[in-house]
């Protein structure tokens, strides 16, 4: 058995990877010192640190050494053999992530109730039911400072309190698992990886507001999540954690799943309610808010998956521990689904107040291409684009709003220099136009007209006045739309125009797309001097736009070209230019 394990990785961005060389030297050194039986050295695929040169990590002490010079390698081995740490060289790396919502994800079997309880599951519920009054539970949430993780950041305790204060014969709780933002899948992972934590949160919410019936509104595109939640509900029913007189108390609750058919607008609470009632999923004006008049006109509390998972944690560990994490106004953690051009795409759970730079570079490992980050998009179609200069902003609800974006449900898309901001705005607006329910005119007509303008910009047919048009329609949509979808649909356009105005102007005035993304504005041509007449481009062109022969050479017929870029990809001699 090895006494120590040393993990090894060259994390510098240079194309030459030194890992294998150093590894061989380590093996030689171990043999020389006859330490082969005591220490094992392993090359790792990812060491969790980036751009820090040669990295060695000694286990089980988890001592981390970075930016090692060649002569340091043997010193690290010697120190490990003597059970010492080289002071001054060892790096103290504070963990960036804090896992509350994802505390059990990937650690327990999601289909085992017993494993969940073994991690402290349902202990919080037991405490709530047997030791706390509903008002005390709401008080705990207030002390914790938990705010809704669905996007708007409304304090959870207030929602609960409003619903609690209303006198009614029946109240409802709903878990909103209609996650629809492109690129966001945190809720799915929690539902799949730790379904009981969400159910526990929902039971606690029901107890606090006095509801006897609850619904999971999950989109049908998440079959595995639906399956696991159903299994977990069945287990909880069998174990007496749901149903009549839960854990011997006077409190009873029934839970049921309702499937969403994939409409984005059904994530909006009033539309969601309409959908559960069996009506068409369109929003209605608020107030009255669902806490007062919701499902079947009864007081209803709707909480997001992540919020509910936080609730069970707060009851288990106490509001003080939760409130000790985060910033003054935004407590706790936030789970982000980091995707796009980032190296380590996946889920991260970070304390509020961390900077975007830390998320993108320290956890995400920078861009996959090695190119510079251009912007980060948060909040999905309701959010905005945050330029690279603002990456040092601390993440919380207010700060992101100030930047013209929102926290949203937790999608975070990293963009590099090859992403065109007009194209991004067009994509998100197009999404909202597709998903608009059509009930109110500002969203239905305004969104469509804005998209038409954006298409003109992308095609090089727009005038400078069109930017004013975009701003004016945006304003109308923000002010007059019925629900959040229309009110926020213009955000991606406004924020890209704010931070990347020159890029819009390039499209309009110079008919150029700096990122080379807008195909209508790019031209492919063959550089005759470099062309070796191999005919690969001709063979690969899907629309036969490259006539010619191996004797006479090739040209691209612009009228026929669909700008797919295939010729550029296949050319081995870099003889195809893109302008």
């Amino acid at each position, binding site marked *: 058995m090895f006494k120590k394990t040393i993990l090894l990785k060259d994390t510098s961005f240079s194309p030459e990877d030194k890992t294998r060389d150093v590894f061989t030297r380590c093996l030689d050194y171990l043999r020389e010192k006859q330490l082969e039986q005591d220490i094992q050295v392993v090359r790792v695929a990812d060491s*969790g640190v980036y751009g820090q040169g040669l990295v060695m990590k000694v286990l089980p002490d988890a001592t981390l050494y970075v930016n090692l010079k060649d002569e340091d390698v043997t010193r690290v081995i010697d120190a490990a053999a003597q059970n010492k740490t080289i002071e001054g060289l060892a790096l103290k790396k504070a963990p960036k992530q804090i896992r509350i919502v994802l505390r059990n994800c*990937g650690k327990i079997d999601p289909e085992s*109730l017993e*494993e969940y309880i073994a991690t402290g599951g349902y202990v919080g519920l*037991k405490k709530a039911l047997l030791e706390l009054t509903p008002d005390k539970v709401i008080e705990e949430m207030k002390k914790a400072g938990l705010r809704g993780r669905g996007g708007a950041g409304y304090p959870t305790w207030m929602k609960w309190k409003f619903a609690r204060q209303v006198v009614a014969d029946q109240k409802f709780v709903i878990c909103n698992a209609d996650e629809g933002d492109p690129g966001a899948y945190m809720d799915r992972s929690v539902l799949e990886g730790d379904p009981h934590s969400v159910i526990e949160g929902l039971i606690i919410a029901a107890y606090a507001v006095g509801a006897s019936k609850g619904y999971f509104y999950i989109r049908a595109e998440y079959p595995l999540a639906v399956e696991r939640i159903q299994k977990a509900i069945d287990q909880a029913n069998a174990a007496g954690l749901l149903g009549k007189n839960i854990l011997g108390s006077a409190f009873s609750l029934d839970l049921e799943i309702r499937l969403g058919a994939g409409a984005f607008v059904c994530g909006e609470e009033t539309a969601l309610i309409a959908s559960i009632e069996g009506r068409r999923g369109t929003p209605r004006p608020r107030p009255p808010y669902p806490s007062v008049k919701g499902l079947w006109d009864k007081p209803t509390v709707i909480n997001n998956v992540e919020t509910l998972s936080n609730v069970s944690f707060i009851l288990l560990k106490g509001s003080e521990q939760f409130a000790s994490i985060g910033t003054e106004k935004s407590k706790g953690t936030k789970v982000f689904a980091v995707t796009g051009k980032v190296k380590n795409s996946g889920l991260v759970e970070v304390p509020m107040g961390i900077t975007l730079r830390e998320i993108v570079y320290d956890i995400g490992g920078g861009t996959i291409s090695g190119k510079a980050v251009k912007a980060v998009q948060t909040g999905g179609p309701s959010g905005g684009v945050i330029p690279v200069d603002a990456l040092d902003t601390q993440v919380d609800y207010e700060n992101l709003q100030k930047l013209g974006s929102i926290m949203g449900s937790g999608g975070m898309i990293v963009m590099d220099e090859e992403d065109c901001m007009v194209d991004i705005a067009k994509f998100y607006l197009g999404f909202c136009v597709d998903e608009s329910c059509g009930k109110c005119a500002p969203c239905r007509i305004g969104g469509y007209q804005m998209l038409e303008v954006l298409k003109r910009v992308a095609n090089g047919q727009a005038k400078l006045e069109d930017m004013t048009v975009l701003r004016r329609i945006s304003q109308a949509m923000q002010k007059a739309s019925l629900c959040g979808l229309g009110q926020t649909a213009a955000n991606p356009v406004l924020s890209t125009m704010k931070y990347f105005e020159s890029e819009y102007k390039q499209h309009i005035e110079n008919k150029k797309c700096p990122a080379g993304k807008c195909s209508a504005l790019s031209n492919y041509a063959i550089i005759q001097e470099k062309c070796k007449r191999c005919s690969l481009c001709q063979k690969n062109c899907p629309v036969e736009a490259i006539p010619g022969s191996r004797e006479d050479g090739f040209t691209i017929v612009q009228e026929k070209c669909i700008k797919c870029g295939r010729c550029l990809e296949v050319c081995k001699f870099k003889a195809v230019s893109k302008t």
Partner: protein
Amino acid sequence: MDKLTPEAIDRIFKQNRQQSANWIKVGMSTCGIAAGADEVYATLVEEIKKRNIQVTVKKCGCLGMCHAEPLVEVCVDGMPTVIYGRVNKEIAVKILDKHVNSKALLNDYIFDLETK
């Protein structure tokens, strides 16, 4: 399952705190399954039976390192607990032969990322 009492919850919570060693966990959320975790899981179960190794294979959710799925976390006696990423059938077999049986870590597949 029998109805749980408040005492039963406390008991399970307290007694089950230490997880026994010798387990292999496979991330089986949508991200893992899409990357081929199903096949890895089946291979592990089958090969363990064939080799008669004393180790349990468990399904679990997503660790968050979706770019490196399928993920396999291995905890066996006398070895540091590590996570292997981008595991396929062949690597799964190697994990059993080298890591579990010969007690030596595999090169080039460990992802030492924050998951706590």
